[in-house]
């Protein structure tokens, strides 16, 4: 057998490497040309697309924090129709498998979004951004609630012709239950996960650092939180492939995520700093596999040596 970086996530979804570009960090199909060879990237998750065009959050939208950033774009995007016409074909031509991230405020919006994508052959998978407000039930984050997560994932999974990954907020108090619910409802896999909400403060002006006041945390500071979330989720839904995202910057970071239970990783903030990061991380994983005498990234999956008798998982 030959050593490979390819990752078979099931349902016909095979990624050339286990390192993808996270949603919102891959541009619109033009920007990374000349900076990274996207054919060597495991996949590219689009920015999150909504039904209608959105202008997004008021600036400033980003502030640096220790080993990270606080940011929000407020889901700026051209809307699903314009995305399908222009951005999607460009992203697909760039050469990496395209995973489309969609964000809705209601069940109907998710259903209509998937409807608009159903016939598109360029799409390798769909990722559900579930961190937007729930406009029907007037909740801050739709995907923090088990009832709605099950409902939305269920409807989308029944409609979609490609595998669906539910991106669950890592800060959700019921994360394991959300994961079980999403997988039972038909999610092929999970993206772990949606970043925690965060606040930046500018003491010189007595004002929040972001125009939208609160945003999301990103960057290496986040990694231990992501690791723990991946670990917990992998224990309750061992059959579902997990895409880990949040704080991965190096090959070692990625290997940590695989050991904790992820099947592949997504990198975001690292791409802003170094557009070749996804390629370099994949190369580093290959080196690690060789060193350990392993044949494929999935050989690392959930191989973390947890002491016997560690907290048993209770079935509900």
């Amino acid at each position, binding site marked *: 057998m030959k050593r490979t970086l390819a990752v078979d996530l099931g349902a016909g979804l095979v990624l050339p490497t286990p390192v993808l570009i996270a949603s919102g960090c891959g541009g619109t199909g033009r920007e990374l040309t000349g900076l990274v060879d996207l054919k060597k990237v495991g996949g590219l998750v689009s920015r999150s697309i909504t039904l209608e065009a959105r202008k997004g959050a008021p600036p400033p939208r980003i502030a640096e924090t220790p080993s990270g950033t606080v940011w929000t774009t407020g889901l700026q995007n051209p809307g699903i129709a314009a995305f399908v016409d222009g951005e999607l074909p460009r992203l697909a031509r760039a050469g990496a498998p395209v995973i489309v991230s969609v964000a809705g405020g209601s069940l109907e919006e998710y259903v209509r979004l998937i409807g608009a994508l159903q016939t598109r052959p360029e799409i390798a998978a769909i990722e559900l951004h579930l961190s937007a407000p729930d406009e029907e039930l007037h909740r801050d984050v739709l995907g923090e609630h088990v009832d709605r997560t099950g409902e939305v994932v269920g409807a989308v999974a029944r409609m979609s012709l490609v595998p669906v990954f539910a991106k669950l907020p890592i800060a959700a108090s019921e994360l394991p239950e959300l994961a079980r619910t999403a997988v039972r409802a038909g999610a092929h896999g999970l993206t772990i996960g949606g970043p925690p909400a965060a606040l930046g403060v500018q003491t010189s002006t007595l004002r929040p650092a972001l125009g939208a006041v609160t945003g999301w945390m990103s960057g290496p500071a986040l990694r231990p939180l992501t690791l723990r979330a991946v670990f917990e989720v992998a224990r309750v839904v061992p059959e579902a492939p997990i895409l880990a995202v949040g704080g991965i910057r190096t090959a070692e970071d990625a290997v940590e995520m695989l050991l904790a239970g992820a099947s592949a990783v997504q990198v975001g903030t690292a*791409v802003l700093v170094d557009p070749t990061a996804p390629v370099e991380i994949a190369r580093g994983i290959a080196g690690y596999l060789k060193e350990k005498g392993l044949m494929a990234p999935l050989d690392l999956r959930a191989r973390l040596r947890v002491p016997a008798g560690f907290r048993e998982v209770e079935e509900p």
Partner: protein
Amino acid sequence: MKRVRGEVLSTRKLGAYHQLTVVAPEIAEKARPGQFVAAQMPEGREFLLRRQLAIHEASRRGGWAGTLEFVVDPAGPGSTWLAAARAHSFLDLIGPLGKGFAHPRRLTNCLLVAERHGAATLYFLAQELLAAGKRVDMVVGAETLDRVLKPIEAKRLSQTVSIMTADGSLGDRGTVLDALPEAADRSKAQVVYAAGPASTLERVAAFCRERALPAQVALEERMGCGFGICHTCVVPVARKDGSGYDNLRACVDGPVFNPARVLWDRWLGERPTMLPTPPEGLPVVRSWPG
């Protein structure tokens, strides 16, 4: 746009600023006034994001061919690290980035308004304008004389120049805005170019609107990447057809914009740039990332 590993040839202190000369022929060859580069920060530090540096000069010929000049204001951890760069160290640069200044062919009298190190990008523009046979006049200012960038260079590049400092330590006491009406008359300005803090540019824009002068301004908005992928450095800009506005990325659609189309109130409305009580003279503006 290229990503290069550029050797720092030399650094020198210029008042409160530092000037860096970096060998980057692939970028220097293409660089235009108004464009910038994104410089990677060192490994193993808690400040991660690339820093955006306006191109102060790009030499294509002569003994300095293939070099870029930057002016750094050491205001935060990243710019302080850059300012301390040593000769023969290397910087990872992506550039040239953004859309530069355009100059209308018909108009010949150009007034350049620069506050603080905004002058870095405008001196580069002045050279290009002079080469194109335009008349260049300048208004250059800052809080104090150590923050007025190369006043002698300003004199060399322009027919007339007004130098303004808030404390009167160099030139006249006041702000560039105080000198603007007289400078526009004196130079018979037909077009205005400006760079500096947003609050100043907003008022330059208002002046140009009043006088019906075409203008271009180089804006600064906080950037995550500098090359268009993160959609954080947006500026609200009115559509040409009047059908509303778009949040345009300063890094790929700017940083140079037509100030008449920038929705300044929407952009700067609740923006944390000014101190609640500005000290005497100029409002203190923190450029970011520092």
